[in-house]
């Protein structure tokens, strides 16, 4: 049986596209017929919940009661995949809280699949977060997500700067999220539906909608590229990882 998998999507900087990436992940798992649940820590508003109301719950990840709601139910929930969209500024503190409750240790022992999607903006301040987070994530699958919200190069033109940040964590994998056309992005915002619904010209209730074919085409093309990245890093293999035998867990 596949072990529970937790995907933590976060950044300490705001406006770098955390929720957008979380939405693409929910759509990706949905497309792979993988049951998924999501927690939106943007309490009390909840942007992720607006797009995926059926699977998303708004929580305050700094509160013990809500931490219990997420982590105590990992083994018992129908959905084996949990996506947590961490509010801006809370990534480091959430990771510390996970260490405190022994979650990081459980992941180290192979009882839980744990992946961190660290969403980076095109600024040095955003890149500096990598060092701060790196110490805490431990053995988790660590994805450095370059979200091209504009035409930034993430300092690729300057190998010294680039390597000093992106090569800091051994085993970290880079993911690129291309830029989505602004008009298409705004149209999906207005529609408040998952990307796959928008592409399929469906509203939130699943009924036929009337979105622009051109914008749907742009979103389909963009989402295809994002999913190609997820395929490249073999995300589904990560989710399908089986629980290691209990003896080995005990030994750990």
């Amino acid at each position, binding site marked *: 049986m596949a072990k529970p998998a937790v995907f933590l999507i976060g950044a300490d900087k705001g406006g770098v596209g955390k929720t957008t990436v979380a939405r693409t992940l929910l759509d990706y798992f949905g497309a792979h017929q993988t049951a998924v649940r999501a927690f939106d820590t943007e309490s009390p508003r909840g942007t992720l919940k607006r797009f995926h109301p059926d699977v998303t719950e708004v929580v305050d990840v700094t509160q013990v009661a809500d931490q219990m709601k997420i982590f105590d139910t990992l083994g018992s929930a129908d959905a084996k995949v949990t996506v947590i969209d961490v509010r801006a500024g809370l990534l480091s503190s959430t990771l510390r809280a996970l260490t405190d409750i022994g979650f990081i240790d459980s992941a180290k022992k192979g009882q839980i699949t744990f992946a961190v999607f660290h969403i980076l903006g095109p600024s040095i301040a955003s890149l500096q977060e990598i060092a701060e987070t790196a110490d805490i994530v431990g053995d988790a699958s660590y994805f450095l997500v370059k979200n091209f919200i504009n035409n930034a190069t993430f300092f690729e033109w300057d190998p010294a700067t680039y390597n000093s940040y992106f090569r800091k964590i051994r085993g970290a994998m880079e993911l690129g999220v291309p830029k989505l*056309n602004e*008009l*298409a992005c705004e149209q999906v915002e207005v529609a408040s539906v998952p990307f796959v619904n928008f592409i399929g010209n469906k509203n939130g209730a699943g009924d036929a909608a009337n979105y*622009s*074919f*051109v*914008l*749907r*085409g*742009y979103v*389909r*093309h963009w989402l295809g590229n994002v999913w190609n990245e997820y395929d490249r890093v073999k995300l589904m293999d990560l989710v399908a990882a089986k629980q290691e035998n209990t003896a080995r867990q005990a030994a750990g």
Partner: protein
Amino acid sequence: MSLRSSVLIVASPRPRVGKTLLARLLVDFQIYNDREVAAFDLNARGGALAQFLPRHAALADIVDVKGQMALFDRLVADDGVAKVVDVGHEAFESFVTVASKIGFAEEARRRRLAPAVLFMTTPDFTSVESYKALAARMPQVTPVPVHNAILGNAQYRDKYPPGGPGSALVQLPILAPALRKFSDRPPFSFAQAPTTAALDIPLEKHLELTHWVRRVFLELREMELRLLLADLQSSLEIRS
């Protein structure tokens, strides 16, 4: 499905090969057959199509997304109106790029429309390669090579093989210069030529022009039937 719900794209990466003339003929062919038609002029220095067909043709521009929405959302609308697009040589590459990126042909097929690219054949390398690449870039579009006889004998015909079922070379016969002086003057309509004698055209010229239009319309009729037959065959194959 009939050509009523077709989307006909007249294209070539080369200038002055007869694209607008063919676009006018396609629109007038629809009008002649009492069909509703809408035409879009994607020429940088557009307006020629609209000058001849003010009630049916509009200027289009796909440089930005708003322009792309105005054109492509209309092209895939299943409204029973035949669509003709005159893609100027400057817009050819961006048209194919955008169409392929947004999945235009796939969406058109899904909506039971029949997209076809009427490609003006010329011997140059760019055109030959562009025609070849169409199959890969827009596989759900039927490429129809068109030979404009005024460009000379088609010794290069083998470089433009028909692209799948329903595709065969369409011949556009030479329109004599003596006739062009009438047909190139707005508001001349090919749709009216076979039935109405214009006052300013001498009778013998009118008869010659009528004969030419009938030849072209016969070519277009046959093309329409080939596309229709190919579509029927493919839908029968899907059912069986």
